[in-house]
C-alpha cells in the first residue's frame, strides 16, 4: 500500500513537472509565430504627378523616327531661303518663315506647320498668314510670324507625339500634366526612388573596407529650387574625426552629393517646400549583403 502510494505520488510529481516545464517550451515556440515582418509604409500617389519638363525629353526622341518620313518637305524649304531676300513678296513669306527656325535647333517645327493644316487646323494657319501680309512692314510681319510660330512650336511637338500613339493615352497624359501640383501632398515613393536611383551613377561606394556594413552616413542638404545643391554637410562630425573608415565613407557620400552628374536632383519643383532641406542617408549595407 505504502509502495503504491509512493509510486502514485512520484508519478503525480512527474506529471506535475512535465506540465510545469512543458509549458515554457510552448511559450517559447509562440514567438516564432510572431516573427516580425518588416513593413515599410510608403506613399504612392494615385496619379503620376510627374512635372512636365521630364516627360518632354523622352517623347522627343521617339519623334525623330516619324520626322524622316515627313522630312522630304523640309529639303525643298532651304531653296526658298534666298527667295525672300531677293523678292520679299507677301504670299511666300509665311512658308519661308519656319526655315529660320531649323537652325535654332527647332527641327520639329518645320514639319509641324504642314502636317497640322492637313488633318484639322488647315483653315486657321492660312487665315493668320493671310492677315499678316496685309500689314505694311514686311519685316515686322516676318518677326510677328516668327513669334507666333515659336509660341505654336511648344504645343505642336505634343501633338506630334500624340500622333504616333493612340489618341486616348495622350489625352490622359495631358490632363495629368495640366493638373496643378498639390504642394501639401507628401513626396511619393516614386519621387524618392528617382533621387535614390540618380545616385547610382555618382556614389562610389568604399568597397571592401573593413566594417563596410556599419558605415551609414547622413548628409544634411539644402537645395535650390532648381534641384541644385546649395549646401551639404556631413552630420556625424565626431565620428569623422575619430574613425578613418567612416571619414572615407562620409567623404565618398559627400562627393556623390556634390557630383555634377547628380546635379540637379530630379525632384518635383512644386514640392520645393518639402525638399528644400533634406537628409540623405547613404547606407552601403545592401551592397554588401547585410
Amino acid at each position, binding site marked *: 500500500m505504502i509502495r503504491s502510494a509512493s509510486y502514485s505520488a512520484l508519478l503525480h510529481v512527474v506529471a506535475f513537472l512535465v506540465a510545469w516545464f512543458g509549458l515554457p517550451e510552448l511559450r517559447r515556440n509562440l514567438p516564432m509565430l510572431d516573427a516580425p515582418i518588416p513593413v515599410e509604409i510608403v506613399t504612392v500617389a494615385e496619379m503620376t504627378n510627374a512635372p512636365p519638363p521630364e516627360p518632354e525629353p523622352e517623347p522627343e526622341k521617339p519623334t525623330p523616327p516619324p520626322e524622316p518620313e515627313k522630312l522630304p518637305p523640309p529639303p525643298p524649304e532651304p531653296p526658298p531661303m534666298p527667295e525672300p531676300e531677293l523678292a520679299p513678296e507677301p504670299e511666300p513669306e509665311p512658308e519661308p518663315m519656319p526655315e529660320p527656325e531649323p537652325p535654332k535647333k527647332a527641327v520639329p517645327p518645320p514639319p509641324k506647320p504642314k502636317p497640322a493644316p492637313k488633318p484639322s487646323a488647315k483653315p486657321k494657319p492660312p487665315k493668320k498668314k493671310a492677315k499678316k501680309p496685309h500689314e505694311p512692314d514686311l519685316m515686322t510681319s516676318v518677326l510677328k510670324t516668327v513669334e507666333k510660330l515659336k509660341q505654336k512650336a511648344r504645343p505642336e511637338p505634343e501633338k506630334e507625339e500624340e500622333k504616333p500613339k493612340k489618341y486616348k493615352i495622350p489625352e490622359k497624359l495631358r490632363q495629368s500634366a495640366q493638373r496643378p501640383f498639390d504642394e501639401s501632398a507628401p513626396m511619393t515613393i516614386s519621387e524618392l526612388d528617382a533621387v*535614390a536611383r540618380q*545616385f*547610382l551613377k555618382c556614389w562610389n*561606394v568604399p568597397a571592401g573596407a573593413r566594417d563596410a556594413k556599419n558605415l551609414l552616413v547622413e548628409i544634411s542638404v539644402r537645395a535650390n529650387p532648381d534641384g541644385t545643391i546649395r549646401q551639404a554637410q556631413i552630420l556625424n562630425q565626431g565620428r569623422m574625426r575619430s574613425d578613418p573608415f567612416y571619414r572615407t565613407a562620409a*567623404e565618398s557620400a559627400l562627393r556623390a552629393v556634390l557630383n555634377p*552628374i547628380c546635379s540637379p536632383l530630379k525632384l518635383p519643383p512644386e514640392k520645393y517646400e*518639402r525638399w528644400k532641406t*533634406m537628409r540623405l542617408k547613404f547606407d552601403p549595407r545592401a*551592397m554588401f549583403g547585410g
Partner: protein
Amino acid sequence: MTTFCGILTGVRLSIRSLVFPLAMAAMIILRTHPAAAELVIDITRGNIDPLPIAVTSFLGEASREAQIGKDISAVLSADLERSGLFRPIPHKAFIQTGTSLAVRPRFGDWRIINAQAMVQGRIEIQDSGKLRIEFRLWDVFAEQQMAGQAYFTVAKNWRRVAHIIADVIYKRMTGESGYFDTRVVYIAESGPANKRIKRLAIMDQDGANHRFLTDGQYLVLTPRFSPTAQEITYLSYIGKEPRVYIFNLDTGRQEILGDFPGMTYAPRFSPDGNKVVMSMAKGGNSEIYVMNLGTRDLDRLTNNPAIDTSPSYSPDSKRITFNSDRGGTQQIYVMDADGDDIQRISFGKGRYATPVWSPRGDYIAFTKMKGGEFFIGIMHPDGSGERQLARGFLVEGPTWAPNGRVLSFFKQGKRDKKGRGGESRLHVIDITGHNEREIVTPLDASDPAWSPLIP
C-alpha cells in the same frame, strides 16, 4: 495684510519667472518641429567602379626635374590603377595643364572631366643634390585639400617616393593603409623539370628593381618576410639537409636559425618578429614548434600522431592557425599560441592547406584542393564566410599584402604532352575576388612572400 500682499507678489513673481522658460521651451519645440518633418531619402545603391583620379605630372623647372616629375606621376598612376580602386584619367583629357598647375587647381576644369580627386606636385633638385618632392591631393567636388606632404631624398630614390605618395593617397581615400612601398620575395625557377634551379629573388611589388639573392647552387624553399626587420627566413638544402636560414637584406648575410634534430619546414615569423614558428619532423611525425630568436629556446606546441604543419600567427600573436590531417583529411585548425584549445575551422569538401592569417586579422587565406583543381580562398578565423578567390590547375602559396586587402599567390598552367606550357607566375588579387593581375617576373616564379611596409 502686508504679509498677504507679500505672498501674492511672491506668487506673481514665481508665475512670471515660470512664463519665460515656458515660452522658451515652447519656442524650442516649435523650432524643432519642422526639423522632425525633414525629408529623409535613403540611398542604398551606389557603384563600385574605380574612382576617377587625375594624377598630373609633377612640375620641375629644369628638364631633369621635369623628367623625374613625369616618371613619378607615371609610377604613382600605375600603383593606383593596379589597386583596382582608382581609374587614373589620361593626361590628354586634362584641361588645366603646364605651369598653371603650380597654383591652386581650377576645380571647374577638373569637374568637367569628372575627376573626383586630383594630384599635383613639384620637384626641386637642391644644391646638395637631394630631391625635394612635394605633392597635394585635392577633393575636386568639395574643393578642399585632402593631403599634402614634402619629401627629401637622394635622386635615385624617386621611385620609392612615388610608392610612398601612392600609399598616402590610398590611405586617405580608402581609410586603409597602403601596400605600394613594399617588396615581394619569391623563388625564381629555371631549367628543365628534372634539374630545376631555384633561386631566392626580390623585387618591388610592381616588379621593378628585380634582383637575385642566391646563386642557385642550393635548393631554396618557402621564403618568409620578417614583419619588423628587413629579414627573410627560408629553407635551404645546403649539404642535402633542409635547414632554416635567416637572410638579412641590409647586410646580405645569411645564417642558420638553428641545428635541429629533425627536418624543419614552413618557418614563419611571429608578428613581433621575435619568434619563428615552424614544423619539424622527428621519427616520421611532424609537429609544430616555436623558437625564440633571442634565446634560441625551442618549444613544442602540438603532440599528435598526425601531421601538423604550416603554422601562422594571428596579428595579435594570441592564436596560431595550422594544417593537420588529425581528422582524417587535411584541414585547417586554430589553437592558442601555447598550443591549447585546438579547434578545427574548415569543414567544406576537399583538402585545405597552407593557412595564412591576414595582417588585418579578419581572414585566414588558404589553398584548397577539390575535384582535381586548386583554389585560393579566404575564411574568417571562426571558419565562417569561406570564399574562393582564384582557381587553376595549380594555384598555391597565398601571402598577404601588409594591409590585408590584397593577396599574392603563384599560378602554374598545365603542361601539354610536348612539355610546353606549365609556366609558373605570380599573381595578385583583391579579397573581393576581383582585379586579378600578374606580377611580371623574368623567370618562372613560385612561393611569393610579401614584405611589410618598408620602414
